[in-house]
């Protein structure tokens, strides 16, 4: 138990610091992609998912793991994911973003956390009837990770999926590139071939990675100054993946809203509510072990502290008071995130980060739901100035 608490502290502090330094925000990653075709943070998210997938697949193959998180799959992922995606875009921060900004001193996101808590409690109260209606009719099958059922060894499967994903990304990149040069040199342009497009994309990807690596090497010349500067989201992604590997081998996959929902039950039990008598807290979240502090609850508390320390070190910490007109974003956005994350189930970390990295069928569906929610809400928020995609 002591060693697990130590792991929780190290992993929480590490992930919190990486999130803060990389401004690793899943809303930014998708919203700014849709609004401006800005892929800076999106690249970080993709890197984090792929690197973590290879780490976890390899660790699983050699038996260094505790377990996957694979809820039953079905339309709950679309419905709950969509509600969560709308909520996080309106709130201006995802589940992990809310936590790291709470650590940076944003009162706005403490309020968001509070109303996520209200969302969890509302869900817990409604759970018995949701279970027999919503979950019973929209869940189609047992949850599974492709790592468990694939005849290919998990490590190889992860590497294979990472290569396919990289090629797909290179094709998109190459198409943009050849599309641009075709216009520029219309007379001499050859039509892009099926083979040519990914190759151009891979060359660009390689060039981008080289300049990134050179920049990181350059930063090593003065590590203290570099540690105070903002980091490339890809650096944060690598850091997060290393801490997530430690967590995977010793505890579980990384989650945020699950532990938060446990916190809501635990805090209410301290206030005298018999949280264990509610079936969602008692038998689902705490699995009949009694309402108490679990190791993942400790981890996310340290995540907030890690972000606070990193922010203080970088000159980004300050107690920020919210504006009155942004209170609806915290109240409604927080509530939708809390409730949506339970309806899916899972948040951006459980589904987009951990869920895709562990190749969970449910998380593929929930990721579609979350991204669709971000897309719709982004178009609504930018209705006056317009979106690029």
């Amino acid at each position: 138990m002591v060693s697990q608490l130590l792991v929780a502290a190290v992993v929480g502090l590490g992930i919190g610091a990486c999130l803060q330094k990389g401004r690793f925000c899943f809303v930014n990653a998708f919203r700014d992609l849709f609004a401006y075709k800005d892929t800076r943070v999106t690249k970080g998210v993709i890197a984090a998912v792929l690197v973590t997938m290879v780490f976890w697949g390899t660790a699983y193959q050699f038996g260094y793991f505790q377990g996957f998180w694979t809820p039953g799959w079905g339309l709950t992922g679309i419905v709950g994911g969509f509600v969560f995606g709308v909520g996080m875009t309106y709130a201006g921060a995802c589940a992990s973003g809310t936590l790291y900004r709470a650590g940076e001193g944003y009162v706005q996101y403490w309020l968001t956390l509070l109303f996520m808590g209200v969302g969890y409690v509302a869900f817990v109260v409604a759970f018995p009837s949701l279970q027999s209606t919503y979950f019973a009719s929209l869940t189609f099958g047992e949850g599974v990770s492709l790592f468990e059922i694939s005849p290919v060894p998990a490590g190889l499967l992860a590497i294979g999926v990472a290569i396919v994903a990289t090629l797909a990304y290179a094709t998109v990149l190459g198409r943009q590139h050849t599309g641009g040069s075709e216009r520029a040199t219309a007379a001499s342009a050859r039509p892009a071939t099926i083979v040519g497009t990914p190759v151009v994309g891979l060359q660009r990807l390689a060039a981008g990675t080289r300049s990134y690596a050179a920049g990181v090497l350059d930063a090593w010349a003065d590590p203290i100054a570099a540690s105070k500067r903002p980091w490339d989201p890809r650096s944060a992604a690598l850091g997060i993946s290393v801490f997530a590997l430690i967590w995977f081998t010793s505890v579980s996959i990384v989650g945020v809203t699950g532990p938060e929902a446990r916190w809501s039950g635990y805090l209410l039990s301290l206030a005298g509510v018999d949280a264990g008598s509610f079936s969602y807290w008692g038998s689902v979240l705490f699995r009949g072990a009694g309402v108490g502090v679990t190791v993942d609850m400790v981890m996310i508390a340290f995540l907030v502290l890690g972000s606070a320390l990193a922010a203080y070190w970088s000159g980004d910490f300050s107690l920020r008071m919210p504006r009155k007109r942004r209170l609806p974003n915290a109240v409604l956005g927080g509530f939708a995130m809390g409730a949506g994350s339970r309806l899916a189930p899972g948040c951006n970390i459980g589904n987009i980060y951990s869920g895709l990295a562990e190749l969970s069928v449910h998380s593929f569906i929930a990721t579609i739901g979350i991204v669709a929610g971000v897309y719709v809400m982004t178009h609504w928020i930018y209705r006056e100035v317009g979106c690029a995609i």
Partner: protein
Amino acid sequence: MPSIDDVVDAPDELDDETAQELYEDADRTQDMMGEVCPYPQVEAQKGLQQLESGDLLVQETDHVPCTENVPKAVGDDAEATVWRSGDGVYRIYLRKN
């Protein structure tokens, strides 16, 4: 030799003195303290639409991500520089092209 600035793709930073001078010269300022994403991005785009080429729009904000995503949001419409106070306040200078 590429520097870290090429990698993080962040706008150039201003020193304290230049930042103050420019702030006093601004054609328009927007108080974005306490705001969250993406509203400063939307306000910057709307604000620039009402300015002439060469005019300076300055946003004062306490929201860290804005120092990068506001310049990204205005794209080629303006040249962006930022100033970091060191205690959680930032100014984003947008000179309309």
